[in-house]
């Protein structure tokens, strides 16, 4: 017998809290995991797994604990941990690089399609950066956290984070993303 069910459901129940959280954050987490994984279907999977884990954790919490929680950093952390666990480092870049992102054209009639394709390619390039640069770019440039917040979130000194962002941006601009780790060391 389920002893947790005590009559009707109120808005404070975990289902409602979870649905609110999902509506509020699914796009942000999807964008974050897209930048980290560089692939739409990977990002969908990571987003789903992130929320499933969040749900598993929060459904046993009381209201106070749910209210106290800073939802956004928590969800981002789950996503990042999932990525760390699932992905072997130095994943090869799956798209062809260079020309499109370097020669950006004016918005045309198929602007939306083009924009999406361009951003997908950009996400793939971000995902192919070395992990430290990738995380720094995803947190600071994509998600828009300040240097200080990003450094705190990633648990790195601010100066290191700044240099990770700078180097990541330089690599993205040069289009030399996705080279082997050996070559990366040389850059």
């Amino acid at each position, binding site marked *: 017998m*389920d002893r*947790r069910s005590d009559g009707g459901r109120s808005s404070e129940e975990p289902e409602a809290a979870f649905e609110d959280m999902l509506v509020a954050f699914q796009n942000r987490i*999807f964008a974050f995991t897209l930048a980290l994984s560089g692939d739409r279907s990977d990002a969908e999977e990571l987003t789903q797994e992130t*929320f499933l884990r969040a749900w598993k954790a929060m459904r046993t919490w009381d209201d106070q604990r749910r209210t106290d929680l800073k939802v956004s950093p928590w969800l981002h952390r789950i996503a990042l941990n999932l990525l760390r666990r699932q992905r072997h480092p130095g994943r090869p870049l799956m798209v062809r690089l260079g020309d499109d992102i370097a020669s950006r054209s004016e918005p045309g009639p198929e602007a939306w399609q083009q924009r999406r394709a361009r951003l997908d390619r950009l996400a793939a390039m971000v995902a192919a950066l070395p992990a430290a640069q990738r995380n720094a770019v995803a947190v600071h440039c994509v998600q828009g956290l300040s240097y200080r917040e990003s450094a705190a979130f990633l648990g790195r000194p601010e100066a290191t984070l700044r240099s990770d962002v700078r180097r990541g941006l330089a690599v993205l601009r040069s289009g030399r993303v996705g080279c082997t780790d050996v070559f990366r060391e040389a850059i």
Partner: protein
Amino acid sequence: MTIDELKLDLQELRSMSAPPELGARILSAAGVKDVRAQISSPIGPIWVVCNYRGLRSVTPVGAAPPTALDGPLPRGLERRLELALQGRKTRLDFDLSGLGSFERSVLSKTQEIPFGEVRSYGWVAKEIDRPRAVRAVGTALAHNPIPLFIPCHRVIRSNWSIGQYSGGGPEAKRSLLTFEGVEIDLMQQLGRRGVRVIADPRSGLFCVPGCRQLKRQHSSRLLEMETSLRALSAGFEACPLCRPA
């Protein structure tokens, strides 16, 4: 491309939205929304509806289909339902939210009746400390949202006639009990002769007919009795397994 253009593009990545169906998929995978699926049962195909709390409803296919997302049941649940229908031990959770406390205690007591045995409405009433609420017990069981898995079919009248069954009428109830190995014709013969309990001189216990304690004995040694009171005054004790009313 300039560094500023690159930064703008990266900012634009933030506005990428998740595919529209992802949210619904997450809700059903998490079990936050009810999901439904069809499975087979001894009374034919049934709809089962569940969420993360557990099983929520069971209805025969052919009646109005339940409102829920079509979705795979949680991992392993279908197997556990199958085991439960065969009378094997397995863990099942139920979502009884929305029911009153009386209904919940009736249903939870009913879950304790073992596969292949029966009890009376009065027994349930007495066990939940509401001995006079026999009729209300009947009503609560008639509205059992999860027939088969909360075995309201194992609750019959105190004269061992079969009584009503919301999951498809008395015939369905009879065929379910027969499926579980209850000798329902024999019980009804006992009932017609006024027998309510069976006493066993060897163990000194008296039982509800069909109690698993009795199945170990030879029937020739057993005594049929009209009331628990008579058994008690003859020096028998109530069987701790079936706790006859």
